[in-house]
Each structure stands twice: as C-alpha cells, then as structure tokens.
C-alpha cells in the first residue's frame, strides 16, 4: 500500500467515524420522538433479527436480479432494433421514454392482476426501472466511435450488421457498463415497490410492517440494509466495468441530439403526434390481446368518456387537475433546487479539490439509496408540509446532478486550463471560462434523466408519506375502484414527465446552439 493509499484510507475511516458519531448524537437529541434510531439500536436490531433480514434480503435480491437481467436484455434488444433500423431511432427512443415514465405506483397493481400471486410484478417493476437508464447510454455508446471506424467498414462494402458487431458493440461497452451501474440499485428499488403489490416476503414487506408498527429501529435498520445493498451493487458493477472495459465513456449519459433539419418545433410536434398514436395503439392492443377486464384495465376510449363526454366529466377533470397542481408545485421547486445545488456543490468541490475526494464517493453511494425507504424518513424529519416533499425530490435530483457535474467539470481540456494558468488567472475565472462550459453537456444529460426520477420521487413521497397529490390519488384507487381516475393519472404523469424531458432537451439545444454548436453534431 502506498503512502497516498494509506492516507486516503485513513481519511475515509475518519469520515465514516464522523458520520457515525453525528448520527449517534442526532439520535440522542430526538430520543423518544420515534423519528430517528441511533447506530447502537440499529446494530442491536440487526443482530437480533439477522436471520429474518437475511431471508427477506435474499428474496428481494433475487427478484431484483431477474429484473436487472430482463430489463437490461430488453434495453439491449431495443438498441439492436435501433442499430439495425436507424430510421426507427427517434420513435423507439420516444416510446421507451413514455414506458419509463409510467408511475410505479400505478403499474404495480396492474401487473399484480396480470400475474396473479408470485414474483412476477416484483421482477417486472425491477426491469421497468432499469431498462431506460441502460438504453440511453447504450444508444449513445453505439455511435461513440470515430467516423473513420465506420468508413473502414463501408470501405469493404460491409453493412449495418458487420458494423454493429465489429465497431458499435465494443465501442458501446463502457457506456453499457455505466448504464448497468446505475441500473443495479434501481432494480432493487423496483423489486421493493413490487413487493407492495401483495408479496409474502421481502425487504419491501418488512419495511411496511416496521413503519406501521412504529418500530423505528426496524425501519431504520431495513432502510440502511437496503441502502447498503444498493451501494454494494453499484460498486460491484462498477468494479466489473473497470475490469472489462477498455476505457471509460467521456461523459456519463452523454447526449447526442439529432441535428435538426427544417423546423425543430414542427419536427418535435410531429414526433409527439406519432408517439402518441403508437402508444395509444400499443395500449389498446395490449389490453385486447390479454383480454383484460374493462373494470380495471381502461382503454383510451374509456378515459375519453371519463374526462370528456361522461356526465361527471367536469368534476373528474377538476379532481385530476387539483391533484396534478398539488404535485406540480412540489416537484418543480424540488427538481430545480436539486439541480442547482448539485451544480453549485460540484463547482465548490472543483475549487476545493481535496474535499471532492471525500465527497464524491459518498455522493455516488447516496445516489443509490432507494427512495421508498428514504421518503417516509425525510417526511418524518421535515414535516408533512411542502418542505418534506420538495426535499425528497431535491435529494433525488441532487445526487445525479452532483456526480454528473463533477465528471463534466473534469472534462475541461487540460491545455486550456494550462493556458489560463500561464496568465495566472484566478480559479474562479478558470471555472467560468473553461470548466463550466465543459460541464454543460453532463449537466443537461443529468437534468434530462432527472425528470422521470423527480416525478417518481414526488409520487412515491405522496403515496407513502404525505397522502396528497397524484401519488395519493393513484394509490387510493385501490379502495375506490375508480380505475378511470387511476389511468387518467397515469396518463398525466407519463405525459408530464415526457413533456418535462422534452422541455429540458429543448433548453439544452437552445443553450448549445448559442455556446457550443459542435455539441449538436450527431
């Protein structure tokens, strides 16, 4: 071990100790309030119930594993389709986004009815939570090769398949690994949410039980174990990636927007229209194919009646609008605050490099903590008002933004920085003129991917903790059988997420066309 490594290890150990101490002090301070359980109590609980937790963990990990496999396989298949039929790229990506934006709260019960008892919904929800974060980097990765590699293939008269096998596949490997790394904790979260739909065992089941039983030690122990496993999964896939890959992708979730031909607005509207049609068709065909009962599996025409032509349609629209606006006023400030804090902290860390070494691993780790375990805890600590929910959304947005921005800031070309050093420019000037522009692509990539994540966070918080807004509306249909409202809410959430995503993408394009037109070249 080198002196530097020993030094790092010592610093990390110190950090862990400090966190434990703070945690202990905080728990002592709120003793008896049933909010926070200290490290000793959590350790005691784990020691006493290790067999129970172990069995539950094994069940959830298995389901998460199968979901991880299925979801990533689906992502790879989708990418294969896109690679071989490049014209389908935009529309496949759009539909993949729509499916990714379907709220877990609502898809869970539908899947349960489809599958009946068993691990089906858990595995499917895990798969649904991972496929998009693999699909997008892979899509970028397949194009992440110098033009001359593609020329080389064409020079010998070779087509899409050979190019795919010889160039794209290997060029995409680092991107695939980056996607898989994010997917690992997401699969665990999906499996836990799946357990809320009527599983007999697993970490999700235990966490509901602990929360209802006011068993704070158990709640925190389960949350921490879930978090630890998610972080481990993240780390393990990362280690595997370093072993397998020949290089790291330049920017995580790098963006490669199409070069707009003709009117971008018109194209966007056209794409949205086609996507809408395809999604409506898929929705209707899937339900007819599975012959799902109209009692809960509403078709587009049911929703049209419910929201437009039925006698109570106006009231239905009003209820949906009220819940949507409740959700909106919490998700937007949380999202913006999370992004801004992430970017600002990243800049601070770049100005104070020794701090970055300590904070970055922590931030990467915290990014993988499952939201279902943190949401109730944060609301418990911050109260039932908007503050709690906004904080949850901000936390969900903050960590990906921070990690992406730090990586982005490091993309600043070394020669440009050296050039500035020659003129003895201040670190602030270097930040402004070289590092922030270099950070923008990563920042926007994180901003786009954070839209569905923020919506997931807000609906989960509303469902599990605050009991208002769209999340609660969707969850409560189980008692009111108002499945029209459930599907209407699904549509609102999915459409809203996609719209937000498109808005960020539009903003990204507008910014780049001003400051860095070269980024827009596909």
């Amino acid at each position: 071990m080198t002196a530097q490594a020993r030094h790092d290890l010592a610093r990390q150990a110190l950090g862990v100790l400090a966190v434990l101490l703070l945690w202990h002090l905080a728990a002592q301070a709120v003793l008896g309030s049933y909010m926070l359980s200290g490290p000793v109590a959590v350790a005691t609980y784990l020691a006493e119930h290790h067999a129970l937790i172990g069995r539950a963990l094994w069940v959830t990990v298995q389901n998460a594993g199968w979901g991880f496999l299925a979801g990533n396989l689906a992502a790879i298949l989708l990418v294969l389709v896109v690679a071989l039929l490049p014209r389908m790229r935009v529309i496949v990506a759009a539909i993949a986004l729509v499916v990714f934006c379907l709220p877990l709260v609502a898809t869970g019960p539908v899947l349960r009815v489809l599958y009946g008892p068993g691990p089906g919904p858990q595995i499917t929800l895990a798969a649904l939570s991972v496929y998009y974060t693999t699909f997008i980097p892979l899509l970028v990765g397949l194009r992440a090769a110098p033009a001359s590699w593609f020329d080389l293939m064409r020079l010998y008269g070779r087509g899409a398949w050979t190019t795919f096998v010889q160039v794209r596949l290997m060029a995409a490997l680092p991107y695939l690994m980056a996607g898989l790394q994010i997917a690992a904790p997401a699969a665990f979260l999906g499996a836990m949410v799946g357990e809320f739909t009527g599983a007999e065992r697993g970490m999700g089941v235990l966490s509901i039980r602990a929360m209802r039983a006011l068993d704070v030690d158990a709640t925190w122990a389960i949350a921490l174990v879930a978090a630890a496993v998610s972080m481990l999964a993240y780390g393990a896939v990362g280690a595997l990636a370093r072993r397998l890959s020949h290089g790291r992708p330049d920017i995580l979730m790098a963006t490669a927007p199409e070069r707009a031909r003709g009117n971008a607005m018109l194209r966007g509207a056209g794409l949205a229209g086609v996507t809408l049609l395809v999604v409506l068709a898929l929705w209707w065909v899937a339900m007819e194919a599975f012959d799902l009962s109209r009692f809960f599996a509403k078709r587009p025409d049911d929703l049209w009646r419910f929201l437009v032509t039925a006698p109570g349609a106006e009231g239905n629209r009003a209820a949906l609008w009220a819940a949507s606006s409740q959700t909106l006023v919490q998700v937007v400030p949380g999202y913006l605050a999370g992004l801004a804090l992430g970017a600002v902290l990243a800049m601070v860390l770049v100005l104070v490099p020794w701090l970055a070494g300590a904070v970055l691993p922590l931030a990467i780790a915290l990014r993988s903590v499952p939201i279902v375990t943190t949401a109730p805890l944060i609301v418990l600590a911050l109260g039932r008002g908007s503050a709690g929910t906004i904080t949850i959304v901000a936390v969900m947005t903050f960590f990906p933004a921070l990690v992406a921005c730090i990586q982005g800031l490091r993309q600043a070309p070394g020669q440009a920085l050296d050039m500035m050093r020659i003129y003895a420019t201040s670190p602030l000037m270097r930040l402004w003129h070289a590092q922030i522009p270099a950070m923008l692509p990563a920042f926007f990539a994180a901003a786009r991917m954070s839209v569905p994540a923020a919506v997931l966070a807000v609906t989960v918080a509303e469902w599990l903790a605050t009991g208002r807004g769209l999340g609660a509306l969707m969850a409560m249909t189980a008692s009111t059988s108002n499945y029209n409202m459930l599907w209407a809410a699904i549509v609102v959430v999915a459409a809203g997420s996609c719209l937000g995503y498109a808005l960020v993408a539009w903003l990204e394009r507008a910014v780049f066309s001003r400051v860095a037109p070269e980024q827009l070249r596909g």
Partner: protein
Amino acid sequence: MTRFDISRRHLMQMGLGGVGAMALGARGVMAQETSVALQLSWLHSVQFAGSYIADERGFWADRGLSVRLDAGGPNAPVEPPVVTGNALVGISAADYTASAVQEGAPFRIIGVAMQNNPFAIASLPDNPVNEPKDMEGKRIGMPLANMPVLQTLATLNDVDIDRIEVIPTQYDAAPLVAGQVDCLLCWSTDLPIAMYVQGIDSVTMLMADFGYTLHSQTYIATEDSLANRRADLVALMAGEVMGWEEYRRDLDAATDLTLARFPDAGLDRPTQIEQARRQVPLMFSDLTDANGFGWWTDDTVARNIETLALLGMPVDAALWDRSILEEVHG
C-alpha cells in the same frame, strides 16, 4: 396451543410439495379437489388467522376445496382479481365494494367478518379525542382520500368540519407521536396497537360507536360465481366460519399458528396477540352468537345503507346476498 399445533404438517406440505399432495391423494380427497383463491385485503397477519386455521385443519380439504390465500398489500387491489376470476372470493369492505359496484363490478357481499367497522380516531391521553366534538380545533392526520369518511362522521355527529385541520399523512402513527398532528384517522386494530406495543398510551374512539356503521372485512364474490359456483362458495365460507370459530376459542393458538406459518413476514407476538384480541369484539356479537359467524340482518344492512348514502355511495339491499351463509349455517 396443542390443538392447532399442526403447522408441521403445513411445513411438510410446503417442503415436500408433491409428496404431500400424493399423501392427500391417497386419502381420496385429491381426486375431487377444486383449487380456488381467496384474495386477502392486506399482508398476512393475525387479521386473517381464521383462514389459516381453516387451511391447516383441513376444513376446506374435507370439502374438496384447496384454497390459495393471496396476500394483499399497500399497493395490491382486491376487487380486480375477483372481477377477473383470479380469486373466487375477495376480502373487501362495504364502502370499497359499493364503489366497485358503482364502477360496474358485478359484486355481492356474501359474508361479513367484521360487524363493526374498525375505523377509529386515535389520540394521545393529554390531548384526547373521546367523542367526535373533541376533534374541533384539532389537527387530524389522514390520507386526503379519506375525506368522505371524516365528513360522514362530522355530519352524523353535528361536528363543524371546517374547524378540523386536516394534515395529509399516510397510514403511520409517527406523525401523532412526533406531535405533527393531534389525532389520526386509522383502524383501531393497527396503529393504536403499534403505539401500545411501543409503550405509548393512546385514546381510541371507535367511529362505529358514533353512528358510522359499515360492515368491514366483507367477503365478496361475483354474481356469476353465485350463479355457477355455489358449491365452491359454500365450501369456502363453511371453512371460513369454522376457522373463525376456532380462532375465537383460542386466540393464543391462532396467533402462534400465524407466526409459525409466516416466519418471513416480520410479525411479532405482542402485536399479533393484541390485534387478535382487539378484533374479537368487532367480529363477534350477540348477532353472530345467535346466527353464526359472518351473519347480518336487514336492520344492520339498512344502517350500512344509510352510512353509505352519506359517503356518496347509494346502494340497495340487494348488494348483500345471504344465500351462501344460509346454506352454511342452515
């Protein structure tokens, strides 16, 4: 305790699977055994102990029925599996069932496990809610979707609902204990027990004592099943009735059975035994003593219809169909 100590048999069935089935087959039961499912309304717990007893003691097997008990959960719907036929019977509640019927589900209530609704207002002793009037000027924590329940209670007891501050929470006692609210709208059989087990005294005002009459833990089946699968429904309900009667006879054994059957559910004995105790008065009454478990009368149905009307769910008495129970108890 010894009477129900047959969970070993259950474990054998689970572990040996086919072997257990063959042993049953040798008894000649397997040949005519029909498989059905009962969709529970929540995670496995002593809340459904009567069903576990029916299963373990062969009350269903004796009638040629094999019943799969499907767990519910916070995000698990009860009504859709019954509509689609995935489950023959579901455990719902009068208000949930009424909503589903309003939405076009062809349901009938064929049994009532809880004569009295467990909805309650829980509060802490130094700031108690002993009667509905006490809620005025207080902060109540509940999911917003339960507003109709609170409104109905207020209307029934002449409470000014505008003087109650509603704080949206989910189903969790922590906001009350942490002082974020003064009272909670919850079931008397869960959050108050959680506080009790944690050593926190609480005051529980049962809403059923203040005019909020609603059947709960109701058995629902589709009209189609009632017409075409009567024998299965009778067998299922007969097993339920016997199971719950055994439950009442020995709560300790029922609790132990539940704990043994679901070692992975994270159940603890103090909570489960307390819940087992507290649900007894909700399930058994003079009415059931006279007529049998699950029974109802035109009078109780009429009071249910009144409450449902206040909740904005007009239903008529035909929603309740006693023919299965009459066959069971007849």
